[in-house]
């Protein structure tokens, strides 16, 4: 799994930080998304997909790699 975020279009709703707090945060001043881990372990994948799906500005892109690279 490879994650990218588009901070230019982020609206600071916080849905990612709420849904997958081990992977996403918001910076203290601006509230913009902060990606804590672009390649989270497998047990976080489900939450990451939910977070990407509920982002109101659709700024989270998740790319799945071959399953052989997963831990």
């Amino acid at each position, binding site marked *: 799994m490879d994650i990218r975020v588009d901070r230019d279009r982020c*609206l*600071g*709703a*916080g*849905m990612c*930080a*709420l*849904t997958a*707090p081990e992977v996403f*945060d*918001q*910076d*203290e*001043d*601006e*509230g*913009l998304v902060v990606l804590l881990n672009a390649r989270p372990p497998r047990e976080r994948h489900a939450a990451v997909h*939910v977070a990407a*799906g*509920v982002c*109101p*500005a*659709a700024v989270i892109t998740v790319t799945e790699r071959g399953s052989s690279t997963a831990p």
Partner: protein
Amino acid sequence: MQHEPSTRPETTRATRTPRTTEVTEPVTLPTQRAAGCPFDPPAGLADLREVRPLARMTYPDGHVGRLATGYATVRSIMGDPRFSSRYELMHYPFPGGPEGPLPPAPVGDMTGMDAPEHTRFRRLLMGRFTVRRMRRLSDRVAAITTEHLDAMERRGPGTDLVEAFARPLPALMICELLGVPYDDRERFQNHAHTLMSMDVSPEDRYAAFVGLEKYMGELVAAKRAAPSDDLLGDLVQESDLTDEELVGVGGFLLAAGLDTTANMIAHGTFALLSNPPQAEALRTDPDLAPQAVEELMRYLTIAHTSVKSALEDVELEGQLIRAGESVTLSLEAANRDPERFPDPDVLDVHRKATGHLGFGHGIHQCLGQQLARVEMTVALPALLRRFPTLRLDVPAEEVPLRTNMSIYGVHRLPVTWDED
């Protein structure tokens, strides 16, 4: 896009047939809730969602636009920049409103702006409402909650939960956060209420707007003169907003904080008391609170309706929406869509309701949602645990419903409990 003739009657409800139903007559927006169903969307929305999740709709002023009721449709339009939120492009969907397009949004009213105007305000504010910042307020929310529950207990059984608990908690919090003296509430609470009403005359609405503006104008001037350590104070000192914009956005934030979570706390309590096993589940396991809150947001969808306007011709679900058409989005129907939420008409605090549209979707998704979550997550279990015998003090059908408000809920919630 071809308009295929309908081959089946509208009443056939087995499957969705959006492509075959577009040529049927425009509908009007269902607004009447069925008697005895205070938690369900107006009757008629569910049938529409099943056969015509994107229907042509005749607006009260004669405009023919659309009505979206399906979850996928509503969500996709809310996230689509080809649909504008500017009031001056919109027709009002409820009876008794203004004819023709609405007046443009007042300065600082973010819900009536598109990017990039909206982005400018949102970026100034969103760092102040992050998940972490709002969670830091948990202790303060808990303290205010305890104070008000203590006061209820001291006064003894029998109270209006709206006045005693649901309204003051979010009001105190938004006032502290913005830097608005709570003791001034006589000067702004009624104005905010009027602005949220759907059935007031344009004159009364204008008077309320002017009243709130006057109050906020004095407050901003005071903060110019003497810096204060709060959101409005910081905006006065640090942002590039003009005083007119500060007054506008201050009034907007204040009104948005006063009349939203208050209704979720009151109506949420009403829903829980009407579903005792659900109340009991939350009472015995407060860890359920975060997901119970999401489920109540979905089930009640008190911000029930939104409107957008097509900026260009848009093809959607096999239909052509023309530039200039207003599209009414029924968030309450979308959140009861069985294709997205199984058994949607059941309140189930164990449900994973994430993805609901109770806070909206797209660039206008609620700025204060993380504050609302903290308030509800603290307040609802605390209330249930303090008063294990909490119950309605009137028959359910006598609870006055906010059917005339853009935020639904109850005007009053008479409750009582047994003293130990």
